[in-house]
């Protein structure tokens, strides 16, 4: 039996109800989101399950997940720090900021800190070019923008998150 279906029967029913049955493949985005809720990434078995629910091939599901930086096919840290390094941001120093962030956390782009809390990622334009450097923080089921960044502001945020993680072992 389909694990996803077992775990979120109501949510899935609600999502599917939004689309005409012959276009149910359109539900692929909300379902990926649902599958990612639990542990921050979409596992290969979840891919198969979504494909089964929507009657499409697993490859189709992977290509949608792969297209968006908000979906993760691999396990990462509890928090993903997604720094935009596209051209406008680069002109406002995004690359230096990225480098400083990596040094601060002691990881390279794509890596996760040993405590399993932070993964640093480089992404394309997030439509906040005028407030660069900026990044998007994904974690605990939430997404937040952090704009006009400096490494000091970043350090403060990281400390807050570390404290939060100590008191709240699980994502809310």
């Amino acid at each position, binding site marked *: 039996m389909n694990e996803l279906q077992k775990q979120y029967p109501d949510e899935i029913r609600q999502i599917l109800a939004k689309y005409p049955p012959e276009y149910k493949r359109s539900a692929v985005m909300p379902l990926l989101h649902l599958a990612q809720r639990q542990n921050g990434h979409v596992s290969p078995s979840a891919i198969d399950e979504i494909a089964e629910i929507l009657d499409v*091939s*697993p*490859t*189709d599901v*992977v*290509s949608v997940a*792969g*297209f968006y930086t908000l979906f993760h096919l691999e396990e990462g840290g509890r928090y993903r720090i997604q720094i935009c390094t596209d051209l406008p941001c680069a002109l406002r120093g995004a690359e230096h900021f990225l480098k400083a962030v990596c040094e601060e956390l002691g990881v390279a782009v794509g890596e996760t800190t040993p405590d399993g809390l932070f993964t640093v990622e480089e992404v394309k334009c997030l439509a906040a070019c005028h407030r660069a450097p900026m990044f998007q923080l994904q974690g605990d089921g939430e997404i937040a923008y952090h704009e006009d960044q400096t490494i000091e502001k970043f350090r403060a945020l990281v400390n807050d998150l570390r404290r939060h993680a100590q008191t709240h072992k699980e994502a809310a």
Partner: protein
Amino acid sequence: MAVKMVNLTIDNHPVSVPAGTLVVDAAKKVGIEIPVFCYHPKMDPVGMCRLCLVEIGRPMVDRATNQPVLEADGSPKISFGPKLETACTTPVSEGMVVLTENDKVSEARKDILEFILTSHPLDCPVCDKGGECPLQNLTMRFGPGESRFLFDEKMRLAKQVPLGELILLDRERCIQCARCVRFQKEIVDDPVIGFSQRGRALEIVTFSDPGFDSIFSGNTTDICPVGALTTSDFRFGARPWEMNAAASLCTHCPVGCNLTINVRREARAGGRDVIKRIMPRQNESVNEIWICDKGRFAYHFTESEQRLTEPMMRKGSELVAVSWDEALQAAASRLKKAGEKTITLAGGRLSNEDLFNLCQLTSGLGGQYWMHGTMGGGDLLAQVGVGQGTNLGEFGPGSAILVVASDLHEEAPVWWLRVKQAAERGATLIVASARPTRLDRFAKCVIRYAYGEEVETVTSLVPEYKTDVSEAICAGIQGILGAENLVVFFGSDGLGLEGTTALAAACMELLVKTNHFGRANNGLIAVWPNANTQGAFELGYRPAADLASRLAEAQVAYIAAADPAGDDPALAEALRKTGFIIVQELFMTPTARMADLVLPAQAFTEREGTFVSGERRVQRYYPAVRPISGPRPDFQIAAQIAAQLGFSLEERLASLVFQRLSEAMPDFAGLTYQQLAMVEEQWPLIGRHDLYFGGTGYDNHQGLGVQLKPAAQRLEPLNLPDVPELPPLQAPEGAFLVVPITCLYDRGQTLLPTSLLHERMEKPAIYVHPKLATRVGLEDKQSFQLVLNGISTLVQVIFDENAPEGAALLPRSVGVPIQGPALAQKEIVSG
């Protein structure tokens, strides 16, 4: 319905094309080349690569008066847009002016190519595509000589990514045109490869199991405009310009796909010609520009080390090599003595020329000749086979197709493709089968019956018999009544000789009663097990229900291209009683091992000949490699034996045999090899100089073949056979029903030598519905001794929800003999 024509000029050439034509195609039709990467004439345009940019102007219209604005000289004033437009997504319009050769366009092409090459590895010297690569060719023709981008900043990506064991991906070379992804989704309904990521990080991924799980996967390597997708069969095999090309035909199923065999003479093969790859050859009435992976990869049997090379004669208990002279003499003297007690048994792999000489020889002796096989009904195709001029590619609204008892996807893949596309264009597809198949989702109406009810089902579709029938049958009748054209495909899913013969008669009755015969795009098509089963029927060969007793009584059995002993233990038993056995073969089959005389035959790649497809199209194949020494063509062996017996058959050339054949057989009257070699222009234009357009498949210069006219089309009276009733299939207590099905990748003699396909081949296993399994006491994946017709074989159980609850499915040619529906038992292993 008259198609509206649109007039335009392209580079000052006046052009007139049907409304809706794309600018790129219109240009192609008048010989003007607009380079493309992502556009492919067999798929909808997507406008992704921008290489096809051209300048387009349209007549100006005065908004106030709605009148065309004229120049001083009275010609319409043309307004050109500020930007270039993609020729692949823009349909023609009246008065349009297209410019494909000016500076603006050349600059654009140069820039696009420069961009595409920013991340291209340019490893042409080691790339399989080098020499026939659209990117290479178009860069040479239109590209910049140099790049302004930094070499050091090129993307580095993985270079040998297996997408499965058949197709390899070179990520660096991909130019993201999505031809492969679109082909898999739009054309063959196997969306098993896709794009992941985006921008420069975009890559092709597969998530199927096994990887790139599609029986049409090889076609993507033909249409990929770069060397990103290559087959593991050909990878690093040869450079395109080193190979010769020979026109041929696929021998694996009755579709008769046109092929080109690429061959290179190799020192490491001792100077022999080696087949490097099989490519599709365009025939828009047969396979268009596609072939399935079986046709593409399963040619290795022709070059197998196991091929027989010398005649062998039984001396004592051993088969020992003898000279051809001795062998032919022995055969002749035995046949002479046997006279009318000779029986010739031939397989549907043989060419018409082989079959003709064999039956001439046999009739000369007064003997009897039969076909080896368990599917009947081919004689009916001579009456109501599809009419001359039939082309599934023309099917659309107003046409209907009925497929009964056949899993076309497995049995005749390219027919599946053509039927699917016909349904997508609006033809009414009716599928009648005992289990779900991959055609169901394209059908207007699916009729599900239980094995054994095939004939009844087809009969109930005859409108005038309409009694109280199910909803599905009603829908089927409606579909048939509403159609101007109807073709019926019948196969052997779950059926043996008796069943298929009856089914063919029922199908003929349906066609005749609804008046769908005797003209193009109407009639009967049989999904035969072999490429030339139809040819054998045409020449008078029939399968015999009582073959065993006939063989047992024969003084000489002359068996060519057939393995009765391997296929059916009852026939092996019968052959033990046969006086003398002559076997003409490629391999040392179980039948050859029982023979008194073994004659090695040439493979189809070594000679020429003709086949008749299931659509009754007579087509030629040509020699591709120089024959290995030893074996001879079957028709020649038969003629040489005949010569010893004092009657003359043509032994020199296949074409001369064909000449005699066409004189002797009314259906072939007047046909010549020259006619079979005739071609006409086909759309899309593909070929060697414009690979960028249609891909690396070959254009056809060697013949489109000729479809035979069935008797009905020649206005001869019909001879409607009675439709026999099939006995109901029911299993008594303690037994269960097993029916044969056909799978694409079986373990037959012509497939096994292709090791590349081993992982995808069927295992000795039966597919059982879980409910049936519970009733019989079988478990999933369990191995057990299956007792069928008294023979016990170890097979595996595979649970299959798609199998019917009433019968287990056993694939043919996987090592467990099965001729038709049979009762099976589970062997109780004591102790």
